[in-house]
């Protein structure tokens, strides 16, 4: 017994939390809609007009039917008047429906645009800690797929939720005005369809879950076997792969059939309930008509009301899941928008105008995860124009140094100074413009070669760009591209080799002529001759500039003024090549190994 209670406890809590979150999200959605308050009011107004006129029409139709009792007893004057009135009502209903849709469209797409803008603006202000901690695919899907899904839900919610509820209420009023008892029949039977739908949905969801599980396993297998077809074929594993595929495929078929069949029971069942309502109205209505308390027109009006009344009920479960879905999606985007920003540096106290290029690290402590100290009490003093090489085995945290110096991350304790000024007192823009940076992952923008080279300096002339490209050995291959400097680099620069991309990144920095440099040498996938070109370009770039290099080559290391030796995220030794060899520690070991 106790155990059961314990189990229920956290689950209940979670449910509460979800509800709270949804409320918060809904409030936030409303705050976005508030910018379009006028439009929203208009939309509601048009919706109301639309519903009222649309519901008035069956009544007029009923009245019209009543003018034609039997042979020779048709009241043409009244009929004409009613038909004219119907024409007007139809016109109003059509127009208001269209205007409502237009308002809803506008609100939805504007809100979506605003959310995307805010989210993107947020991306520029989020600390890298956040961005590094979330996979790119996840963030992209929040900003694109989730926002899209939200838009669909919002549009549907707007158009159907409000009109649906209004239709139900007004139909009820109209029906009550005609006949209380028949109304009761409708009101009592209709919700049945709702329950039937919910009942089936509950049963089906288990099947759907099994189906998606099987689908997941199968996709994994496809991914593995087709994605690595070269190995599969080299080892002649095709037959076995097919066998395994067949097994899971049969399972998937079984679950899929059940899920599809059970879920497709919803429509016929609700339709059945509707038909029962229809029959009920027909019978009771006919009795009242025989008694004389209801006209035939009234009955026909009732019949179409019965149809109209059940429709929102059938749709409502769909609308609710859609809305809930939309809220969940919106919640995921808002998580991003509400994430904590980097500290504001709008009122930076100090500024560097003319850079000397000295860098000091004083008693720096840093860790990515609170309980796992990485860098502790690091001291380093770099004079102007010196080269600092950072070495160590792969994954030892060399990039952490770049993160700290560029202030992508803030130190936990101690301070980092440029020209004796604490970098936290500078604006990030001022700090970062001191450095030129070339990373191992060569990132290029979607655009022409020229646009990419001018990335840091938009006002550069074509001549300046070409000069920089020549200095960095990029000019000769750019010339040979189909359209030279105006060649469009495709996403991920597929039309360029890794080495060429690296050269472009170097040229980009050459154009800037920054006072200081941060370089991450490429490790592999570049052949040794291109590598030599890159080295020579790096060499030219570093002349007279304070440089930090994540080094993979011995030549770079030997020429460095200071070598930081890192291991498991810590700086274990520092000094120059000779002094480190003399120390006979980790560096010497590394050196001897190769």
């Amino acid at each position: 017994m106790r155990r059961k209670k314990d189990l229920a406890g956290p689950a209940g809590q979670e449910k509460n939390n979800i509800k709270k979150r949804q409320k918060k999200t809904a409030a936030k959605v409303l705050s976005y809609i508030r910018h379009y308050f006028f439009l929203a009011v208009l939309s509601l107004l048009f919706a109301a007009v639309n519903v009222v006129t649309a519901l008035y029409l069956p009544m007029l139709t009923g009245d019209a039917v009543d003018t034609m009792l039997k042979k020779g007893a048709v009241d043409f004057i009244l009929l004409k008047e009613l038909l004219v009135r119907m024409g007007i009502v139809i016109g109003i209903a059509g127009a208001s429906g269209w205007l409502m849709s237009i308002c809803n469209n506008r609100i939805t797409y504007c809100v979506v645009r605003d959310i995307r803008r805010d989210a993107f603006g947020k991306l520029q202000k989020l600390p890298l800690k956040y961005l590094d901690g979330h996979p790119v695919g996840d963030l992209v899907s929040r900003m694109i797929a989730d926002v899209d899904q939200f838009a669909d839900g919002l549009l549907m919610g707007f158009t159907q939720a409000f009109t649906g509820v209004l239709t139900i209420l007004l139909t009820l009023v109209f029906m009550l005005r005609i006949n209380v008892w028949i109304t009761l029949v409708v009101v009592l039977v209709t919700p049945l369809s709702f329950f039937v739908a919910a009942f089936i949905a509950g049963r089906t969801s288990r099947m759907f879950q099994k189906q998606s599980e099987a689908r997941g396993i199968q996709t994994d297998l496809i991914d593995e076997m087709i994605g690595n077809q070269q190995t599969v074929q080299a080892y002649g594993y095709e037959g076995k792969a097919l066998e395994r595929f067949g097994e899971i495929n049969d399972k998937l078929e079984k679950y899929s059939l059940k899920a599809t069949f059970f879920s497709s029971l919803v429509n016929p069942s609700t339709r059945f309930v509707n038909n029962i309502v229809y029959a009920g109205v027909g019978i009771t209505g006919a009795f009242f008509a025989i008694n004389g308390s209801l006209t035939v027109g009234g009955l026909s009006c009732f019949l179409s009301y019965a149809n109209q009344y059940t429709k929102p009920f059938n749709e409502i479960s769909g609308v609710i899941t859609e809305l809930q879905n939309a809220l969940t999606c919106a919640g995921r985007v808002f998580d991003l928008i509400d994430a904590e920003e980097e500290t504001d540096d709008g009122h930076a106290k100090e500024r560097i105008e003319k850079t000397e290029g000295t860098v000091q690290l004083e008693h720096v402590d840093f860790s990515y995860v609170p309980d796992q100290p990485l860098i502790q009490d690091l001291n380093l003093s770099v004079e102007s124009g010196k080269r600092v090489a950072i070495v160590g085995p792969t994954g030892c945290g060399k990039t952490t140094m770049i993160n700290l110096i560029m202030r992508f991350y803030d130190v936990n304790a101690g301070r980092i100074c440029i020209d004796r000024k604490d970098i936290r007192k500078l604006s990030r823009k001022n700090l970062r413009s001191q450095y030129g940076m070339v990373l191992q992952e060569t990132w290029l923008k979607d655009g022409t070669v020229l646009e990419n080279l001018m990335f840091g300096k938009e006002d550069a002339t074509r001549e300046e760009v070409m000069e920089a490209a020549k200095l960095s050995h990029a000019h000769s291959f750019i010339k040979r591209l189909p359209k030279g400097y105006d060649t469009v680099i495709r996403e991920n620069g597929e039309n360029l080799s890794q080495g060429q991309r690296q050269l472009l990144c170097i040229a980009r920095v050459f154009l800037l002529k920054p006072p200081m440099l941060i370089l991450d040498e490429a490790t592999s996938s570049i052949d040794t001759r291109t590598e030599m070109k890159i080295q020579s370009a790096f060499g030219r770039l570093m002349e007279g500039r304070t440089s930090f290099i994540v080094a993979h080559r011995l030549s770079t290391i030997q020429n460095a003024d200071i070598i930081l030796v890192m291991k498991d995220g810590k700086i274990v030794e520092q000094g120059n090549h000779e002094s480190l060899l003399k120390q006979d520690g980790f560096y010497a070991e590394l050196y001897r190994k190769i």
Partner: protein
Amino acid sequence: MGESLKGLWKYLREYKKECVLGPLFKLLEAVFDLTVPVVTAMIIDKGIAHRDKEMVLCYGGVLVLLAAIGLLCSITAQYFAAKAATGFAAKLRYALFKHVETLSFTEMDEVGTSTLITRMTSDVNQLQSGVNMALRLFLRSPFIVFGAMIMAFTYDFEIALIFVAAIILLSVVVFGIMAVSTPLYKKTQGILDHVLQSTRENLTGVRVIRAFCREPEEEEEYRGKTVFLMKAQMFVGRISALTNPLTYVIVNAALILLLWRGGFRIQAGTLKQGEIVALVNYLSQILVELVKLANTIVLTNKSLACAERIEGVFSLTSSLEDHSRKNHSRPGEKTDFQKDEGEKKNAFVSGEKQQSAGTEKSVKTKLVFEHASLCYKGALEPSIQNVNLEVKEGQVIGIIGGTGSGKSTLISMIPRFYDATEGNVFVDGRNVKEWDLEKLRKKIGIVMQKAVLFKGSIRENLLWGNEDATEEEMVEALKLSQAWEFVQKKEKGLDSFIEQGGRNLSGGQKQRLGIARALVRKPEILIFDDSTSALDYVTDAKLEQGLKTLSYHPVIFMVSQRTSSIRHADQILVLEDGQVLDVGTHGELLERSKEYREIHESQYKNVGEEAADFA
């Protein structure tokens, strides 16, 4: 249902019974739906008009009965539709997987693996729901629309003409708007993709963007793109928002006409009040079904597009001629007999040639490249050109050159991942194109640049190399590939679990297991495609030593960017831009090949003889 489904039709044909019964029951349901207004008219004209309560109850009972039969028909129809759709999808997926497995890399490169995976998953799913939907609605909706029209004709000719006009007008509006808005929706989807791409780009380049202080410009650019997207969405939204109001107006305009003409008919006594009510009902049924039909058509169109894409995969056939495999590509055709015949013939020819090759020479020639060139499909220039090479049994061949010089291309011709576009490659005196693919590949053990491991235990992965390998053989291979040390340390040893893609192993460990897998096979030809660069020097050297001790003396191809890995090879090929610049031993090449010397020196400069790089 369109030309494109033709090829896939046969998978659906197996569910002929379901495909006929499903729509049939749907049709029955529609018939009952169409009967409802008739019964209602009876209630009014017979029951109410004659004040006959019994009659009312009787017809009311008919209504309930109709509803119940309708439910049964509909459920039956749904079952058959679901069965046909899911069964069709399963058959299709299986055939698709089987077919893709036979494709050679020329086709795989052309299409791309991610595309193939999408075809097999989401496209098939979409097609499944398309088939399901089509079986359920495609007959029903038109049937009700025209059924209602025909019912109208049975009541009154002139009023039925109003129906005809309304149906035509409604169709024009519904399908017209659909025709206009579909391409527009596609366009907005394209714009959305563009926005997606900028988002991704911004995220992957966040460090560079911040280092260059370009955040404001990026934001500005993004704003522009979202506004563009919004405008496109609003435009198409405005057009498709016309559908509902327009159809509403058309149907109700028809209603006004119907009532006006109906008034005259009643006055003349040719129609009764209840029949007018029935006609009104039919009119509203038409609207509902037309909208459903439009939606079905949208979905079907999507599914047809998926079907076309899937059909596209089937139309790819392996460019490799292989006698044993040729008949695999399509299922359901019994060709086992032919297949067997082909294999026997092959075996016969192969034996003959092998024999003659064997008796001719004392040290057998294992492998010959004869003017072999390979130009990838769609490429302007060949990736490797005019390779001539004779490899004796037991020889070690080194291949060196920069990225893109054609090293991997050269060796990919041996297991026929790609066929030489010019010239020939011979293994055991026989052209590889004449070998049975499976038998040829059994002779070869290949270790790729990036070792690919599969979900499962280490043992299962090693068994890929040779299904019948004993425990001792596996351990031996692991020891040789320097992997035994870390495998041994694992709690479960050989039965340790490897996650998909070997995520729970380091790069070096994966590489060593990849080598072990090739060794378990005891291949006649062992190929290392730049696969030892992920190993440190000590391991690399130990591996090299170990390979010399192999009892079965395989031919070894060693592709590398480091001269240190190939310096002991019997022959070294120096490649640049797809050309074989020189062939010789390390010493010979150092003396006469400028390029080889350059490569060698670039790796040994500054730091004496024994160092290269840290990575």
